[in-house]
């Protein structure tokens, strides 16, 4: 009979019309500024730099090795390596980035910088309300804007950050032991002091 399929369709739309009032499965829209979706842990958008401790300049993990700059497919990272060395979070003298800019209008959130970073210094952020009125400067993030604490990293990606922290702690412990052994060989008296300092620094993290 002509019109049978049309009637079937009409019942289906009617079912959806009423269903949208009672069934959450059918009405999936979220009223954005008031309601927000729960943060999915794996979410990524733009990179940020992790620092340990309180001071972002002192605790920055980045040692300016420039691997991410080289590997970044759209070349949105721009790093200038420092001339001098400064002690990092563990107290070891390291180079640091004199300039570290990421142009997030160019960045395509591919996460390759995170994958290639050997120092766990660059990670993916989850902020998404980034609109700005300044088309160029507003989307060009400098070192200070990019720096976020390790606590923040632990908050947004707990599982991943936990693993990173454990690995880093193990590595530092190893380094400390090696240093201690070395120190014990050279100057047995100084061991206690170095060890205490290391513990203190780890505690601030």
């Amino acid at each position, binding site marked *: 009979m002509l019109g049978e399929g049309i009637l079937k369709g009409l019942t289906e739309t009617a079912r959806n019309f009423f269903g949208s009032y009672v069934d959450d499965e059918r009405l999936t829209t979220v009223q954005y500024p008031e309601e927000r979706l729960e943060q999915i842990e794996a979410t990524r958008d733009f990179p940020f730099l992790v620092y340990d401790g309180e001071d972002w300049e002192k605790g920055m993990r980045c040692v300016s090795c420039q691997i991410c700059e080289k590997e970044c497919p759209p070349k949105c990272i721009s790093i200038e390596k420092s001339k001098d060395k400064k002690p990092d979070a563990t107290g070891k003298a390291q180079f640091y980035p004199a300039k570290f800019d*990421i*142009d997030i209008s160019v960045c395509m959130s591919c996460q390759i910088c995170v994958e290639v970073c050997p120092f766990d210094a660059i990670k993916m952020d989850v902020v998404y309300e980034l609109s700005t009125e300044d088309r160029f400067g507003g989307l060009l993030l400098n070192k200070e804007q990019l720096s976020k604490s390790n606590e923040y990293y632990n908050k947004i990606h707990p599982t991943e950050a936990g693993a990173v922290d454990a690995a880093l702690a193990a590595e530092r412990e190893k380094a400390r032991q090696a240093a201690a052994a070395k120190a014990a060989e050279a100057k047995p008296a100084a061991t206690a002091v170095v060890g205490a300092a290391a513990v203190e620094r780890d505690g601030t993290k």
Partner: protein
Amino acid sequence: MNLETVKQEIEANVPGCAVDMVLNGSPSAQHSLLVDAAHGFAVAQFLRDGAAVRMDYCSNVTGIDWPVKEISTKVKTKKMVDGVEKDVDEVVKTQSGGYLEVVYHLYSVAEREGPVIVRMRTEDRAAGVHLPSLTPLWRSAEYQEREVFDLYGVMFDGHPDLRRLLMWEGFEDFPMRRDYVDPDDYEYEPTAHDEVLQRTREHWSAEDCK
């Protein structure tokens, strides 16, 4: 089906054609057949219609640019130096490339065979860039050959509608060639660095870059 048998079949059925095996050194071991341009169409026709092969499906058509490349190899030769035979390293310079290559990936839907990879090379990269078009045999080559013409500048003789596909009418260069030079129309990029920054500076005045 073995590529060697395909080669023999072609040689038996298309008189006068020169078919070479091009071996592939990578683990994929997808070897290919290099066919001379003059007999390209006949070989392709045989590959499509020949009872033994029946490659009815032309999956992929690609161009590759091989500019002239000088390869310097050190060859150890024995030479008579002062009457004594000695091993001497000698640098031998050979030229390779200097042509455009078109690669066809053929499959057989009926026999579920493939791929048979057919390559054809142009004489050079300037004037002798003519190759026979296989579009009359496989319609699927129509847009892909247009694309190869557009990006590499290979002229396909016998193509029904050889126009640019992706670039606009009136565009002059062939962008996929290795020696293509980007036009000087860089826009200001905030994080311009290295070479990009250099070119941006050259293109724009200092105030624009500010």
